[in-house]
């Protein structure tokens, strides 16, 4: 294990140091399943709402979903970067980075300005992420994933490590299941994380109650589609048309309408149910 970077010497853009409060790193695959992405976003939103600062790495996939979720939850989020803070990588996250700053968050990096993305810098960044957080939550990770490096570093630093279970058929959950087997806390909702942190704040979700219906008001005729959609596996419009005995043009229209309301999302050639969002993004 390499030595920890000097946290006081971090470069930062935005509000740094962040406001007081518990900090939780949410990390995971850069290529999550729709499930992983949704989980990262939802956990982050609920944590943010409970006043937790969400830390992640500004990478594709779970990282971006976590930052986005924190913003949706109206919270502060910190992006720990593997490049200089003046270089947003991947460039596609330029807007996300701006939104993080606008919401009172920060971009931080142990690397000097002008450092471009280098493969060997990212594991070091993962250590920093662990060091900055009180707990690390791994959402989805294949074996050998960078998210597991963060988890390992967190263990070395005696931080709480937690993981989100998934399907036993999904290679993306092999890493998280291994963590759970080795003693990581199992995360079913934000309350699990808050309990592990010892923060007894109130959150929106009650683990003992089944999940409420989607938080959207939907005109009746589109509801029929939602029952046939899954939040893990994609379903194609053609399959829906067959199940509902509706013409495909009608189904496509309804799906678009639901998508417009944020209730479904397109993923590849199919659709998934978007997980509940308490507040629609502006």
């Amino acid at each position, binding site marked *: 294990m390499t030595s920890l970077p000097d946290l006081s010497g971090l470069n930062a853009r935005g509000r740094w140091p962040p406001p007081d409060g518990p900090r939780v790193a949410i990390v995971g695959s*850069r*290529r999550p399943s729709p499930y992983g992405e949704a989980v990262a976003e939802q956990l982050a939103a609920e944590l943010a709402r409970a006043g937790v600062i969400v830390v992640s790495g500004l990478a*594709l*996939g779970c990282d971006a979903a976590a930052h986005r979720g924190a913003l949706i939850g109206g919270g502060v989020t910190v992006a720990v970067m593997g490049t200089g803070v003046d270089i947003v990588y*991947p460039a*596609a996250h330029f807007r996300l980075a701006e939104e993080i700053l606008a919401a009172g968050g920060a971009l931080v990096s142990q690397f000097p300005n002008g450092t471009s993305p280098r493969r060997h810098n990212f594991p070091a960044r993962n250590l920093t992420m662990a060091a900055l957080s009180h707990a690390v939550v791994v959402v989805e990770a294949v074996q050998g994933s960078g998210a597991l490096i963060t988890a390992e570093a967190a263990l070395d630093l005696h931080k709480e490590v937690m993981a989100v279970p998934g399907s036993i058929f999904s*290679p993306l959950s092999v890493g998280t299941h291994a963590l759970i087997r080795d003693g990581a806390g199992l995360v079913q909702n934000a309350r699990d994380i808050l309990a592990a942190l010892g923060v007894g704040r109130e959150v929106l979700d009650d683990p003992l109650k089944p999940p409420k219906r989607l938080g959207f008001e939907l005109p009746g005729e589109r509801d029929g589609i939602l029952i046939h959609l899954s939040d893990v*596996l*994609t379903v*194609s*419009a*053609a399959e829906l*048309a*067959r199940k509902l005995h509706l013409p*495909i*043009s*009608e189904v*496509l*229209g*309804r*799906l*678009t*309408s639901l998508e*417009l309301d944020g209730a479904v999302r*397109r*993923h*590849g*050639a*199919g659709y998934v149910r978007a997980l509940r969002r308490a507040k629609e993004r502006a």
Partner: protein
Amino acid sequence: MLATVDSCVLVGLEARRVEVQADSANGQSKFYLVGLAATSVKEARERVRSAIKNSGLAFPGKRLTVNLAPAEMRKTGTALDLAMAVAIALAETGGRVPERSAFLGELALDGAVRHVDGVLVAARCLKKLGYERLFVPAADAEEAALVEGLEIVPCGSVAEVVAHLRGGEQIAAQPFTEVPLESSTDVLEHDLAEVHGQEEARRAIEVAAAGGHHLLLSGPPGSGKTMLARCLPGILPPLELAEAFDVAQVRSLLGDLLPGRPIDWSRPFRAPHHGISMAGLIGGGSGYASPGEISRANHGVLFLDELAEFQANVLQALRQPLETGRVTITRSGGSVTYPALFTLVAATNPCPCGWLGDPVRTCRCTPAVVDAYQRRLSGPLLDRIDLQVGVRRVPLSQLASEPRGEASGVVRERVLAARARQLARQGCLNAQLRPSRLRNLAALEPGSRLTLERWSERKGLTARGFHRAWRVARTAADLEASELIADRHVLEALGYRLHDVAA
């Protein structure tokens, strides 16, 4: 003595008149060919000399000069052979060709007149230039006789032609080629009834056919993208006469007309391999450019399988033709313009390994690789493709249980009705509507306008994307024979927008 005979050379889809003058004068026995002849024309000297000699005619044993006028125009091809031979024969023995006659044909050494490319194009243009009679190779007479009001003389050999001109045995003119009526009993090679499942893609093909929209199919290997694309010609209406003529002209230039069936009513379907060069796809070559695949696909379908594997610059070159329906190519000889009004159907894998988003197999590509792959497609080209749908693989075991869809014939009825509505309303297909005309011809109900605006606000549509969805909504409404564009039409149209979402 001097003799003058007319012929022409082709520049793209236009013919330029060439006057072939032959003069035999006293002097050393020599054959001069002047008038900016390219190599293929210079070689005519040898062919013409042998052909005349072997036809039992006398070749002038004097100083022979053949001039191709206008001398500043570069001449290529072998179609001038016949005119040269006739001019030389007449210069030796005297005699004139009838007024307003032109000659086309390549010669064999034994004096036979051989096929040349582009006779149909030449005949049409020469008719316009005021010619009344055209001597063509016998093999091409049927093709030339498609042009009404032009006397076509089929030529078997130089000897026959010279005899005809000197008032000897006359060659019977080729009768006007009756355009065969469309045979409605054609059995479709690819019928939509053979496609199991894939309702979304089927519907997209129907919309593409109805509105003339370009279509992108994205899906893993073996999901039936090619099969679906090949079904498209089967649900399109047959060519109109004018369109069939356009198609025949391009084929004629390339020497690609079917013997005995110069006019073909079925829509062209061209599927070039992704290794194709710029010149092959767009058109090109030395001198004057010859037509490429996009012009062969005129009034039909251009299918580009594995779109991301095409060279980037080749794909970029598609932008102008996609926008304007024609292509202008400049080469050393000058510029030519060819028609290129086609429906583009493109197919692609979602990522290099092909399995991204597949419910069963896992994609093994890194995000950066997927990104780079999709970026090759994105941008201006995709912006011009109205319909983008994902195609899912149907597992082999389920294939039989997937419902069969309607047959092509049924779908075609709806497509024909929708196209008729569009032509009656605006004189063109919806895909060709400019934004200004869209506003007039495709009024949105307040509710559907709001939906479109909400979507573009949410998803950040470009102006072009906005109009694209609008045009597709117009077609969806036309398929329902509805003059108003309702909310559901806009919503359906927005459902065919794979790549806005990925971005």
